[in-house]
């Protein structure tokens, strides 16, 4: 197993700049998710680490060694694709053992390692079955088996759960994370699904238009987003954004929203008057008659334990998460306020998060 270091990586396809100076480190044994919308450059980044694409500029180090120009076969990594291409004419045992056969490993050793991989993945009972009759989850386990049987330096996975339905995906998320905890293999995992990233990753790198916008723990990504894009992309429903215009002094504890002062975490930088955005997570919106923002209930979405209430205000439609036991009437006029210690402020022009006391708690970079 090994550390993966990506330094100032760039990739252009003709005039299209797919990856722009991406840098991050995956420590030995860590699980990193590359997360972003389609077209953000996450798969291209993964393919460069794998050696399936050559970078236009930048370096990739595996366990300290510069492998930027090495062939894929010389990198000692295992790649798991979204569409698990199993050999339909081979049974499970032969599918899993195939990479070892290619490496010229003898039959006895092959057998031992296939059995071990099957035990780890809990598919020992399927070893002599044909792969064509297997359910989606089991097929994906076989594909994983083929990756882990080689004991590579690291695993690269490209949306391996994308083709599974919700329930199977949730089960596989737990399984993949448990597998990672057992093997301790350095893993880079590409997904556009925030739930997969939040549930599995030690660290998440959020990408947008080829740029790595933030690399941090799932908790920091959610609680301390570095940019408007990250704040908007993570969270379901996403963060509420209230535009306003104000200047900021270092040490300030409030901002001026309309005619009211809103308490926020202490500001750590000064800013001339500019267009700003107040970011509020739906679970940090509280209902109170003294609220600083008033609005009309547009509708509520029942989710069992909780509900999402949409309120039309002068700042646009705001969403609040509340216990399902409270009932709201459509059209009802209500007051809202926000939990001060959790609020983010962004510079609208650049999208950058303004430094406040909130960001001191985490490993914000």
């Amino acid at each position, binding site marked *: 197993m090994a550390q993966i270091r990506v330094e100032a990586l760039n990739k252009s396809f003709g005039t299209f700049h797919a990856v722009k100076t991406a840098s991050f480190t995956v420590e030995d044994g860590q699980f990193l998710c590359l997360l972003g*919308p*389609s077209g953000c450059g996450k798969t291209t980044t993964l393919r460069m680490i794998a050696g399936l694409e050559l970078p236009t500029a930048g370096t990739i180090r595996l366990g300290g060694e510069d492998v930027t120009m090495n062939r894929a076969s010389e990198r000692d990594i295992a790649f798991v694709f979204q569409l698990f291409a199993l050999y339909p004419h081979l049974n499970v045992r032969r599918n899993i053992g195939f990479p070892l056969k290619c490496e010229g490993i003898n039959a006895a050793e092959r057998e031992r390692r296939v059995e071990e991989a099957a035990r780890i993945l809990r598919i020992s009972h399927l070893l002599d079955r044909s792969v064509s009759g297997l359910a*989606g989850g089991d097929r994906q386990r076989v594909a994983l088996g083929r990756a882990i049987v080689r004991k590579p330096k690291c695993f690269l996975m490209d949306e391996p759960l994308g083709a599974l*339905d*919700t*329930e*199977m995906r949730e089960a596989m998320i737990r399984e993949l994370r448990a597998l990672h905890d057992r093997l301790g293999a350095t893993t880079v995992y590409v997904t*556009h*699904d*925030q*739930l997969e990233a*939040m*549930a599995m990753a030690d660290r998440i790198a959020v990408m947008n238009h080829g740029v790595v916008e933030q690399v941090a723990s*799932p*908790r920091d990504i*959610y609680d301390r987003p570095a940019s408007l894009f990250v704040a*908007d*992309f*993570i*969270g*379901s*429903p*996403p963060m509420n954004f209230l535009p306003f215009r104000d200047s900021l002094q270092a040490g300030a504890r409030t901002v001026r929203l309309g005619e009211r002062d809103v308490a926020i975490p202490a500001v750590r930088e000064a800013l001339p008057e500019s267009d700003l955005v107040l970011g509020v*997570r*739906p*679970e940090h919106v509280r209902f109170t008659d003294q609220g600083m923002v008033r609005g009309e209930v547009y*509708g509520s*979405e*029942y*989710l*069992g*334990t909780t509900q*999402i209430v*949409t309120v039309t205000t002068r700042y646009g439609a705001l969403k609040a*998460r509340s216990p399902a036991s409270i009932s709201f009437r459509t059209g009802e006029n209500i007051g809202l306020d926000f939990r001060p210690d959790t609020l983010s402020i962004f510079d609208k022009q650049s999208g950058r998060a303004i430094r406040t006391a909130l960001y001191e708690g985490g490993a914000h970079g």
Partner: protein
Amino acid sequence: MAEVEIRAVSKAFGQTRAVSELSLTVSDGEFVALLGPTGAGKTTTLRLVAGLETPDSGSIRIGGRDMTGDAPADRDVAFVFQQYSLYPHLTVFENMAFALRAPIRRVPEAEIRAKVHEVARMLHIETKLDNKATQLSGGQMQRVAIGRALVRSPSIYLMDEPLSSLDAKLRGEMRLELKRIQTDLGATILYVTHDQTEAMTMASRIGVIEAGRLMQIGTPREIYENPVNAYVAARLGQPAINLLPAGLFAGLPPAAKTIGARTEHLTIVRGGGDVAATVTRIEHLGDQSHLHLDLGGLPVVTLSDPEANLGAGDVVSLCLNKPLFFDAAGGRVAV
């Protein structure tokens, strides 16, 4: 729009019974979601209503008329598939107008134009009408596919996982929009999904389907709060309901073999509760944190109170608060 009635419909493919004795009525203007895992028979049910499959027994009535033997074209239904198969060489406008241009419909050109623009406005794609269908993002293509159905005024819209190929954010936005459009139009919709959030947030009623059988039908709240059996109980709720052996707790109804405990049925205290459990992991999912507990070797997952400050290894105590009970066969035990 019209009422659609499925009466005791069965359909087998060879040895596999895809749909068994399924009965369901979708009232005029109602949004019914069929919820179940892959292979439960949801899509087959939809195809039976559309006339793309013929039932082995039972009947399909649309607007009071028996349509069981009628061809799809005679049923006046609009189908939205998971894979938006748009005509790549046509513009968005032409794709949406296509169904109205069918010779048998003879819709006047001015009316086609008005209808397409109205629906495009509803779906926020009016600026894309002159684009080629292939120049759109996935979310926009799916809007066009839905738009192609909405320009018609059929008896019922049949939708087969129309949002499942979209990313999470877009899916969330489309849920709200689709629900709003359905309400505004008073549209009758039968909607198939394996996503509980889609079913809960959009449907007036949810039908939970398993192995070709309709297990329960009711409002999202009824299904969530009052499931008829353990299977249905496990379909809704995040984190999923914990199903625990009755022996762990004292004072339960005699018939109860399994306790169904959702987050709201569990109170976590530092000491003095009914049973002790050890915190194994706290999973921060952003808006919620899942607290993973080990209760005598059994995993229990509940929502973690962000203020509780628990960590792995902490020993806590659990109290039950009006949980659900199930008998040996999984059926609900009344309290």
